[in-house]
């Protein structure tokens, strides 16, 4: 109680207040007030997060217990916030990047009517609130509340322009795909409760609890959690919602579908790292799924022409790398990549938003080009973001991606080879995007060219801040080979993963890579990325629109490997026909038939019996006599009534 960190409840409460103000008074608030309230609460949260982070850095971690959420028999689930190294780092990312994106949104969404404008900020604040709950929660239930909350906000914001039917479909797709994953998450929580009767992190990860779990239990639980993660973090087989989620406003794509929400799965697995380390089978599954997602999404990104779609597939691909990192046990590396990715991907999305804004809503890169001279700040920051994601030293993406790849090499050189191939593709498609957008000649209409302009300060300010972070953010995790003790992030996160690392080193003989090997690995990947990068710039700076339809592999890639069509044929269509069958046969003929049949039978019977009521007194009397006789006969033959 006396711990200063006990006030961390203010961090999520502030965005909630912002949500209530903007949500309830959306009809009366002016745009500037709504934008100010929305951003100010996040800024306040950010300040508190910095405070919490500094406290944690000085060694003060805290498990804040506020009240019991569920209290049944021995099961006690508290409303707890756990503030430790991992959650405080995520707090900084969420509120920091979140604040920049709020500021950006005040300008980007300015053309909306003020009612929608306030609604937008209400949703955005609600999202930040849910995301904070997710990472601050001291047990899986609080995490799950946030987990569902961010899913809801994601749905609301993807379908923000709900008058467009495609957008609402995209929103529904995202929501349903997330629900599939959530089911896995829930089942895992139930499994935990049934085996060890608690969901609090500290208790679950204690030695006594872990001893109660058999290998099967751990494998099952971790696999189910991973199913949840594939839904939220867009991995195979549930990744197809994320590219469609680009239907939402661009700042939303930056905040939710790049920087924060989609990293929830990584956070969850990093949080449960001890469980995952104890389940080698799951780790293997995670690594393979992550790697295949990284490659698959990268190949699709090669041929997309929508600027946001490229970034979306790039996000899926980068998330794949994070899962690869988790799968091979490089938890710090994965979290590190979450952080750097949040910087450069938010930057790229916001840059793309700035471009779209200047182009008057145009998203097709084939109609862009030559924007370099019109939008200097956007161009420069975007270029920095591209270099960062391509993994060119000393930009941030290099350090985090390299750490994951090095860990992958330790696990299996095959992982490394595929991973580097993916990294090459990353460099290629990012610079294809850069070349097509900023270099060459302008290919849009005259009207658009006339309209081209640099975005206002509310848009360029977040770009500049994020660019600085994207460039220098990597220096918190300089690998051991360059500077001894340079990996500040690993030192900072060490207490979180101490138990896991102790477990791993006691079970597997671990040999660090020799420095020479590491230099060779880094050199190779950087060299390959540079080759891909310069090839892409060469090819696409002189890009001309061609009308010829692509063929062969290019066509397959353009159509995203036909995965959506495959899902449509394998799952959606059979489900539709099954529903149609239930509707037409079971519902209409069976249930309706039964209900209507009862009515019809009574109706028919009544009509027939009506003839008895003839009005003839004699007939009545006759019936009475017959009735009496029948009673007598029954009485006579059936003695024991």
């Amino acid at each position: 109680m006396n711990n200063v960190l006990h006030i961390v409840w203010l961090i999520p409460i502030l965005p909630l207040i912002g949500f209530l103000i903007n949500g309830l008074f959306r009809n009366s608030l002016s745009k500037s007030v709504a934008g100010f309230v929305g951003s100010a609460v996040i800024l306040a949260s950010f300040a508190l997060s910095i405070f919490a982070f500094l406290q944690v850095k000085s060694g003060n971690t805290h498990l804040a217990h506020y009240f019991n959420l569920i209290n049944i028999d021995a099961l006690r689930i508290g409303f707890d916030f756990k503030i430790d190294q991992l959650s405080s780092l995520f707090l900084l990312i969420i509120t920091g990047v979140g604040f920049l994106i709020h500021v950006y949104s005040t300008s980007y969404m300015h053309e909306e009517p003020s009612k929608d404008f306030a609604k937008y900020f209400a949703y955005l604040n609600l999202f930040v609130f849910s995301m904070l709950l997710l990472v601050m929660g001291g047990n899986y239930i609080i995490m799950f509340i946030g987990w569902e909350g961010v899913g809801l906000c994601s749905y609301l914001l993807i379908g923000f322009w709900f008058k467009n039917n495609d957008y609402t479909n995209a929103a529904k797709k995202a929501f349903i795909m997330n629900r599939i994953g959530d089911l896995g998450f829930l089942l895992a929580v139930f499994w935990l409760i049934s085996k060890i009767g608690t969901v609090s992190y500290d208790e679950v990860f204690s030695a006594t609890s872990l001893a109660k779990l058999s290998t099967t239990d751990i494998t099952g639980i971790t696999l189910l959690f991973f199913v949840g993660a594939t839904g939220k973090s867009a991995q195979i087989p549930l990744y197809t919602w994320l590219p469609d989620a680009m239907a939402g406003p661009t700042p939303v794509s930056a905040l939710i579908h790049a920087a924060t929400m989609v990293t929830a799965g990584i956070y969850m697995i990093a949080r449960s790292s001890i469980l995952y380390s104890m389940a080698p089978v799951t780790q293997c599954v995670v690594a393979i799924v992550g790697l295949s997602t990284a490659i698959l999404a990268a190949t699709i990104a090669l041929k997309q022409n929508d600027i946001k779609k490229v970034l979306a597939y790039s996000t899926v691909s980068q998330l794949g790398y994070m899962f690869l990192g988790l799968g091979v046990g490089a938890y710090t590396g994965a979290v590190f990549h979450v952080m750097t990715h949040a910087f450069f991907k938010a930057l790229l999305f916001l840059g793309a938003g700035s471009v779209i804004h200047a182009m008057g809503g145009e998203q097709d890169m084939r109609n862009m080009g030559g924007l370099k001279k019109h939008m200097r700040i956007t161009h420069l920051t975007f270029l920095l973001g591209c270099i960062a994601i391509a993994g060119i030293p000393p930009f941030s993406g290099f350090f985090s991606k390299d750490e994951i790849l090095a860990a992958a090499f330790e696990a299996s050189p095959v992982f490394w080879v595929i991973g580097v191939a993916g990294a090459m593709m990353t460099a290629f498609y990012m610079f294809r995007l850069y070349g097509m957008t900023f270099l060459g000649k302008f290919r849009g209409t005259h009207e658009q060219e006339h309209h081209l302009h640099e975005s206002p300060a509310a848009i360029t300010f977040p770009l500049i801040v994020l660019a600085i972070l994207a460039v220098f953010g990597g220096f918190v995790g300089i690998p051991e080979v360059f500077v001894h003790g340079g990996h500040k992030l690993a030192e900072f996160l060490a207490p979180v993963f101490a138990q896991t690392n102790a477990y791993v080193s006691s079970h597997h003989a671990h040999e660090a890579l020799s420095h020479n090997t590491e230099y060779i690995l880094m050199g190779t990947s950087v060299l390959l990325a540079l080759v891909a990068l310069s090839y892409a710039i060469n090819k696409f700076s002189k890009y001309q629109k061609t009308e010829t339809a692509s063929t062969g592999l290019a066509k397959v890639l353009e159509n995203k490997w036909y995965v959506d069509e495959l899902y449509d044929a394998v799952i959606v269509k059979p489900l539709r026909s099954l529903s149609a069958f239930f509707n037409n046969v079971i519902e209409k003929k069976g249930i309706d038939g039964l209900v209507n049949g009862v009515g019809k039978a009574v109706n028919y019977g009544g009509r027939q019996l009506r003839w008895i009521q003839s009005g003839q007194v004699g007939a009545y009397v006759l019936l009475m006599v017959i009735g009496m006789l029948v009673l007598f006969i029954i009485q006579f033959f059936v003695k024991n009534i």
Partner: protein
Amino acid sequence: MDIKAYIALSLTLFTTGIIGVLVRRNAIIVFMCVELMLNAVNLLLVAFSKMHAVSPAAKASLTYASDAQIFVFFIMIVAAAEVSVGLAIIVMMYRNTHSIDVNFLNRLKN
């Protein structure tokens, strides 16, 4: 006297009553047949009452098997009330239709 004779007489009266009610259309006759049935039952009640009254067990009891005889009076009173109502209906029926045919009453259904 043997109880069987009473039962036979009562049965005859009752059957006559039923047949009369079923086959005759004159309301007065139907009415009389109903009375015949009531009185067949009354006769039976009194006969059984008398038969039980001579049994030693009934003598020992204080009620002296008088329930049935009281019940007969009750039926008579109800029958008298019924007759007064019934005859009044028949009179009204005759005034309105100039007929006392019971089948004529089926026009009530409309």
